[in-house]
């Protein structure tokens, strides 16, 4: 199994979710994060004082899938999350040794 971690632009979440669902992905987990990267932040000004904001709001999607479909997941995810503009984000793939469904105790791919 693989864990696919994607950092995307917030307003792309709905597109990504539906795209992955169509692909048969049963679940995923999303967290709010702040990202620093090529896409430069912005400056906020308060009473004439400039305040440099380096970090931008992003969403971090975490989805574990079977190795067999991981490539399609990554590709689908990429397409759904893409705007073509700087700051679209990244996708990382990691190995998962074990997965368990807390409710039933099912293990491995059955747990997904």
């Amino acid at each position, binding site marked *: 199994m693989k864990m696919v971690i994607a950092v995307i632009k917030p307003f792309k979440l709905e597109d990504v979710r539906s795209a992955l669902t169509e692909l048969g992905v049963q679940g995923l987990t999303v967290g709010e994060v702040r990202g620093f990267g090529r896409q430069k932040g912005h400056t*906020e*000004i*308060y*009473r*004439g*004082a400039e*305040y440099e904001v380096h970090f931008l709001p992003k969403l971090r999607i975490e989805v574990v899938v079977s190795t067999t479909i991981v490539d399609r997941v990554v590709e689908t995810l990429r397409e759904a999350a893409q705007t073509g503009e700087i700051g679209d984000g990244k996708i990382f793939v990691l190995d998962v040794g074990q997965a368990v469904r807390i409710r039933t105790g099912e293990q491995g791919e059955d747990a997904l």
Partner: protein
Amino acid sequence: MNRVEAVSGGIAVRKLLVRRAVGRVLEISAMSLAVLVALVAPAAAQEIDSGHTAWILTSTALVLFMTLPGLALFYGGLVRTRNVLSVLMHCFTIACLISVLWLVIAYSLAFADGTGWVGGFSKAFLGGVGTDSASGAIPETVFFMFQMTFAIITPALIVGAFPERVKFGPMLTFCGIWLIVVYAPVCHWIWGGGWLAEMGVLDFAGGLVVHATAGSSALVFAIVLGRRRGFPNELSPPHSPGLVMIGAAMLWVGWFGFNAGSALAADGNAGMAMTVTHLSAAMASLTWMAIEWIRFGKPSLVGIVTGMVAGLATITPASGFVGPIGGVVIGFVAGLVCFYAVQLVKHALKVDDSLDVFAVHGVGGITGILLVSFFGDPSLGGLGLAEGKTMASQLGVQAVGTIAVLVWSVVASFVILKALDLIVGLRVSEEDETTGLDLATHGERGYNI
């Protein structure tokens, strides 16, 4: 408008109304006894006017509302999340402490008969004041309460100078001493019939008594206390501009009680005071917004409400003396002057008067005090200057008053602060400052969402 009234908001109106009562009696001296009785009876019954009383009771509520929660939210939204509660706590505890001290001694020092420098002790603990005691057309208890709300908000304004790093106990001690050493005497000088009142200084609702004292003392406090860690480079933006706006809106509404209430009556003077107050706030807001829009391309919410406060602080001393157009012009000047004052103090002088108390309240209040000399003059649509004063001579008197108040506020505040710093220390530890005062000092967190 009665010249005497121009001398000050506080006592003048009282005098004025007594005069009216008397006047009414004289006018009719020619009439038959029966009629005389008929007229005097009601006149006497009118001694305390329920309408004026109703308005000042309301104004008292409005001005307390300015501090709790108005000012507290305005300041609380400007600091970082980890210090928001400490700011609310500062404003709240100051309100409580000052209230008790006001009863114990401060009211007496400000308004009891005394020297030209300070009032006596006769009214300590409201000595001799009962439900029937009158202060002009209103019960003295109402006058006492109304003035108390001014005594509360003035030190509360200083809170903006020391957030995120001040030690709680010493801060509170300072405010208590400051009330008695700085506020009460200055209040007596100008509203208590003291030497500046005699001289003819015009300060309708507190340009000197409130804003100049608080603003200058705030600057001293900021300097003695030192800058926040990371100032000015690692500034954090206000953690909640929305909270700032809520507080600002409450200040605006409450200021109606502050300025129009200072007429101590529900009449045309109150109406005009409310009008010019509102117009100045609106115009100053638009001015500040325009400057930001032009300079930064983005008019901000925190910016426009800061302009509003500048406009209100600046019109305060003038609110009883100028006309509508004067109000608009004063508002425009307020927005302009205070905007650049902020740049100067914070970015040029690098003084961490964190929430710009001096640049907005101090500079604004003084600007208003000086502008009264011009826009108070009938030739510029004003309602009249102090007895026998010309623009020039009035300006001179206003200048003297300003210098006297500034010198006294700065010197006294400096001494009190240095003393406290030596004895107990004014500043929290670096660690507490990093943790934030909410958790470090009060054991609470702002948002457990």
